[in-house]
């Protein structure tokens, strides 16, 4: 980690809001706010932890804090979108993609409105705060909703680029699934090129023996796994499948054909998440290869300090490398 105030075991910060640098929704919207008067933003008493408040500070008349009333917030966002707004809603994923599933389905996805939901602190990143604060179901829930786009960006640059695309050109409801903003970035800041485009997966490392398809902060962990595997002469391709729906099918076909093994990695229940989405594509295409879904194995995650928790679930570089070797050794 890059800062001395960040504790690698606990993920706690001495000044907890200052360093959630990868939560870029608010600053991106603030940058676009003058040119795009249709942007409005809604939060539920977590404007600072989600950093949506960065938009509110510049555009207070287009920023609404609903207090601890998430269902009302999501449905009101739908009402705002029906008047021509692009409504950006952010709170913790467990209180958005999980708690508000019905409001998202009925008031947002079914009428196909421009509501963008940014579920932060997803997966098991909340560590010891409790299983109630873990969100290991939100991909499955939102992926099953027609009209919905589901995106799990790897870092703050990726989030910012795809938020910007959602303002400028992309239409329809989107669920963004992001972490706590304290993760190590993988994309280049202030790049002149757009590095993440909705619906198009990124090959972030080339390799020929196995492909790891990951999303969210697991992309960085997959890259670390690839480094470890390299030492054992295993050449690993790593794909950032940031858009889980609609999924980039071509890159899955290509990886099955060219590497012969695919390991999916996500901090989500293996039932219904990224791994399931990749499996569906493979099975229906007839492109078979060695395959495993790695993630949370249909259980409620235990609590712990994040560093130890990711290690426990083998969702760090070492654990993922181990899973990859097991898969390759299968007959």
């Amino acid at each position, binding site marked *: 980690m890059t800062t001395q105030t960040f504790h690698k075991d606990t993920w706690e910060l001495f000044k907890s809001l200052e360093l959630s640098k990868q939560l870029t929704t608010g600053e991106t919207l603030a940058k676009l706010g003058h040119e795009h008067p249709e942007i409005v933003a809604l939060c539920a008493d977590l404007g600072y932890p989600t950093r949506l408040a960065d938009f509110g500070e510049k555009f207070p008349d287009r920023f*609404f804090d609903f207090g601890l009333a998430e269902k*009302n917030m999501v449905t009101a966002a*739908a009402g705002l979108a029906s008047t*021509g707004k692009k409504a950006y809603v952010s709170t913790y994923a467990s209180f958005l993609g999980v708690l508000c599933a019905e409001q998202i389905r*009925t008031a947002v996805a079914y*009428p196909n409105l421009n509501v963008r939901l940014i579920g932060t602190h997803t997966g098991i990143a909340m560590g010891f705060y409790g299983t109630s604060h873990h969100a290991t179901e939100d991909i499955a829930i939102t992926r099953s909703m027609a009209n919905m786009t589901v995106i799990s960006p790897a870092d703050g640059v990726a989030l910012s680029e795809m938020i910007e695309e959602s303002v400028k050109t992309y239409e329809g409801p989107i669920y963004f699934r992001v972490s706590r903003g304290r993760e190590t970035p993988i994309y280049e800041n202030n790049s002149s090129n757009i590095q993440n485009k909705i619906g198009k997966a990124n090959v972030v490392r080339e390799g020929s023996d196995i492909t790891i398809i990951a999303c969210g902060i697991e992309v960085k962990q997959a890259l670390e796994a690839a480094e470890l595997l390299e030492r054992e002469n295993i050449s690993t391709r790593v794909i950032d499948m940031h858009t889980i729906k609609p999924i980039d099918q071509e890159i899955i076909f290509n990886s099955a054909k060219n590497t012969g093994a695919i390991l999916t990695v996500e901090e989500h229940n293996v039932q219904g998440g990224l791994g399931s989405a990749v499996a569906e594509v493979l099975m229906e295409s007839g492109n078979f290869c060695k395959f495993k879904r790695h993630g949370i194995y249909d259980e409620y995650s235990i609590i712990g300090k994040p560093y130890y928790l990711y290690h426990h679930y083998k969702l760090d570089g070492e654990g993922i490398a181990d899973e990859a070797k097991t898969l390759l050794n299968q007959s």
Partner: protein
Amino acid sequence: MSTQTLEKSEAVNLIREKAKMSRLETIRLISYAKSGHYGSSFSCSEIFATLYYYQLNYDSKNPKWAERDRFVMGKGHSAVGVYPILADVGFFPKEELDTYTSLGSPFGDHPDMNKIKGIDFSSGSIGHGLSVGVGMSLGARVDGLKYRTYILMGDGELQEGQVWEAAMSAGNFKLGNLVAIVDNNKVTVDGVTKELMNVNPIKEKWESFGWNVVEVDGHDVEALIDTFDNLPNVDSKTPTVIICDTVAGKGVSFMEHGFEWHVANLGEDDIKRAIAEIEGGK
């Protein structure tokens, strides 16, 4: 088709006729479906007619006009009473209603904003409507437009917790451009609201969330007109709720007050009796 330019007595008579039309069409349409929400539509017939023929500002030839008033049914199951009015005021040809509930028809028991002109929001999940209204009212404020948003809810709907989240936020955001209408017909699917899950006192609940509360007989067209005429200015800081004292199944004696007619299917003889009573204006 606003009656605002008419003499009041003429306006009242016309609105009453349109309420009657809504009831008769409800019976015709439900006869195609063989099941539908009679009781909870009849309790709002005068409310619907007063809104569409007197109060709401809209352009049926330009249904998405940005400055139109919005009307959303939290109780989407009353849509069968609104569809005939939308046709009558020109949003679509009346013949389209003949497809009601047939395979792939735009017209189902609950309304779809993307399939039916004149429907401002899809509904069906009880308790969402007022939150949608909060969003629409905030949208008007952001755009500096002067339209109002009207949200119809049943008294049973007030049992949904989200309604009170929305009520709290409307008071907090000082949405004077938001008008809630409670169709207090006092029954739900399983029984009498007061006995099944008491939501009373209704008036005091709204007052405590910072709303301007008006009570009115929901079948008295003249009183409804007076209530709408006396709404606080759209720029006021207080949302208004109109609590309408209504009768479930109003207009058909054997349906009135009965929760059994919330969803039902009339037989042929009963259809004749019901039509005769509505046409007779009893």
